[in-house]
């Protein structure tokens, strides 16, 4: 009797220790994104049955909280098996250069991903000739969303240039409608809008140069961008400090505000609220430019279930995985060989643009600069929203670039 019991206990322990597991870390907990993640889990479970998936997601927009948890775990020597990270400098500067990751170039060769993903995205997941993560999706940051009904009511055309933007805003203001919805509670949203203003004023090359030193931050076009941004801020809702990005989108849904500059995760929000009267154009002056960010997953050194992670990464990069995930998430696949007719209208247009527009990396979402630069940049712009002092702010922007070792 006792012997049997002991045997049973020992067997249970053995199973508990050796049971196949994979722990996946992300900040996808809301609406469409959680569903997209579930789709990936479903495919994985079908292909590799018997592996227990542990969903270690930490809630919080733009991953601010999740990143803090991740950093303490990585530094404490307890890495999750794989984790979500923005492709670009956030991946390379924070995790690759510091030696926390394993290269996965072999997977790219085996699966042929380097042939189906465009150069713009391959560039930002590589370092020292190796690939370091698998991009699951592409989001676009430089979109201006508008309420179609309001625009029809006042006979307005969605603005393409800054001049048109201010004309439209003036008309809307005179009718008592908030021209531009903004939510700055989480601290990054204003800098997000300013990023699109920088692109609008400096163009793709000029904007990219800001992060490499080719364009100086003292450039008169940066002054122009700051002045324009200050002017735009005169047309935003007065309670923006009380709202998060989605609460700003709510103003568009409720018909209180007419426009909003936000990434295309706003589509997911609009659909979730059963709101279909929205239209989109590119942010003012952003014609022909795709301001991109990408969520990706990599292979940390010391992952406890290495084989399972490699299988999961294969699912992420596969046609099937990218299709299932992105339809739910509202973003577009990083692969270019997926039939766009399977996607809703907005995503179709983004997929077309992805192929023909010039791709620039988003700074506020980790693609263009290191996390320390992004944090300082965000702080300077946050202060600018309350105290629109162009001269001091430009000087501060020059200084933080210098502190990053970029010659000015």
């Amino acid at each position, binding site marked *: 009797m006792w012997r049997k019991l002991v045997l049973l206990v020992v067997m249970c322990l053995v199973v508990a220790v050796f049971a196949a597991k994979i722990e996946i870390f992300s900040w996808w907990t809301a609406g469409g994104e959680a569903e997209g993640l579930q789709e990936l889990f479903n495919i994985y479970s079908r292909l590799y049955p018997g592996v227990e998936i542990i969903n270690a997601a930490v809630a919080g927009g733009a991953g601010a909280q999740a990143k803090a948890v991740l*950093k303490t775990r990585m530094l404490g020597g307890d890495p999750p098996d794989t984790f979500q990270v923005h492709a670009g400098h956030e991946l390379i*500067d924070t995790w690759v250069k*510091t030696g926390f990751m394993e290269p996965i170039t072999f997977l790219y060769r085996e699966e042929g991903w380097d042939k189906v993903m465009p150069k713009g995205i391959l560039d930002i997941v590589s370092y020292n000739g190796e690939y370091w993560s698998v991009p699951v999706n592409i989001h676009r940051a430089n979109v201006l969303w508008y309420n179609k009904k309001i625009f029809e009511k006042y006979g307005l055309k969605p603005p393409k240039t800054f001049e048109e933007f201010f004309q439209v805003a003036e008309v809307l203001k005179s009718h*008592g409608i908030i021209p531009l919805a903004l939510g700055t509670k989480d601290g990054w949203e204003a800098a997000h809008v300013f990023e699109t203003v920088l692109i609008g004023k400096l163009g793709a090359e000029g904007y990219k140069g800001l992060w490499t030193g080719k364009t100086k931050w003292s450039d008169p076009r940066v002054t122009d961008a700051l002045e324009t941004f200050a002017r735009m801020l005169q047309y935003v809702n007065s*309670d923006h*400090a009380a709202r998060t990005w989605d609460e700003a989108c709510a103003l568009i849904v409720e018909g209180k505000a007419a426009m909003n500059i936000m990434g295309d995760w706003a589509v997911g929000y609009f659909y979730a609220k059963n709101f279909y009267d929205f239209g989109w154009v590119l942010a003012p002056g952003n014609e022909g430019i795709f301001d991109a960010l990408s969520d990706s997953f990599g292979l940390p050194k010391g992952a406890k279930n290495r084989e399972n992670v490699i299988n999961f990464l294969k699912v992420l990069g596969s046609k099937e995985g990218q299709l299932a995930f992105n339809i739910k998430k509202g973003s577009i696949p990083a692969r270019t060989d997926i039939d766009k007719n399977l996607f809703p209208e907005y995503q179709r247009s983004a997929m077309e643009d992805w192929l023909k527009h010039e791709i620039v990396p988003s700074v506020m979402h980790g693609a263009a600069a290191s*996390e320390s630069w992004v*944090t300082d940049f965000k702080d300077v712009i946050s202060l600018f*929203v*309350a105290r629109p002092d162009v001269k001091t702010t430009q000087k501060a922007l020059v200084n933080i670039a210098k502190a990053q070792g970029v010659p000015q």
Partner: protein
Amino acid sequence: MKADRIVALLFILPSLILVGIFIYGFIGWTGWVSMVNWRDVFPDFTFVGLRNYSRLFEHFRFAISMKNTLIFTILFLLASIGIGLLLAILLDRKVRFEGFFRTVYLFPMAVSFVVTGVVWRWILNPGTGGESVGLNWLLEKIGLGFLKSGWYTDPNIGIKAVVIAAVWQMSGYVMALYLSGIRSIPTELYEAAQLDGANVFQLYRYIVLPLLRPVTLSAVIILGHISLKIFDLVFAMTGSGIGFSCDVPALFMYDTTFRGNYFSQGAAIAMILLLCVAALIIPYLVYSIRSEVRR
């Protein structure tokens, strides 16, 4: 006698070791980190002396957040202690249903700061497009429309709006402290004063308030260290606020460490917060140890 000592030592040894490692050990570690050049996820232990501190004192966000903490601490202490004392005195006047009121006033303390923050974020939301919500709506309905304001979205108010929420939460606790203080004053003192012909005002002025001094000191210490370290309430209610008008050092520390990867700078902020709290508590400890010795 000697065996007694050894046994006593054995009993406190586990907690002594744990406290030594997890409090003083980590304080020492933080102090060390604040003097190295750790500015990336990967630690860099090059000693740089006080450079992180001098950089910090030049940082605009640190200056704003320290000023905010000062404003917050002063207003929060004054308001909580004033309201707490007033409520305690009123309750002590033998009101009916005292138990009920006591519970009502004390209840907010049972709520977590995060809940308080979220609720007051909604109450003090000024609303958009001329439409009033929350407290502004209430003010409008009762004819006090001129009192409407942008609350924490107004950079001139900022952190002062957070004070309202903090006072709501903690003044009941101060009331409880004072009430027990008042109740512990021996009745003979009241009777003697009444025999001498003291009126109610004089009774409080010359008997109750002087005897409550130690309670006030405890209240200042307890509330003071909460307010210097405040993080959760501000984080849930406003974040850094417009132009950092609601920012506090703890929030800056979190941001710069975990978003910006400036681990050394974060550690320097932690050390400065520690010094601020120490400046408040050490005189109190010295005072209380001395008075114990005297006894």
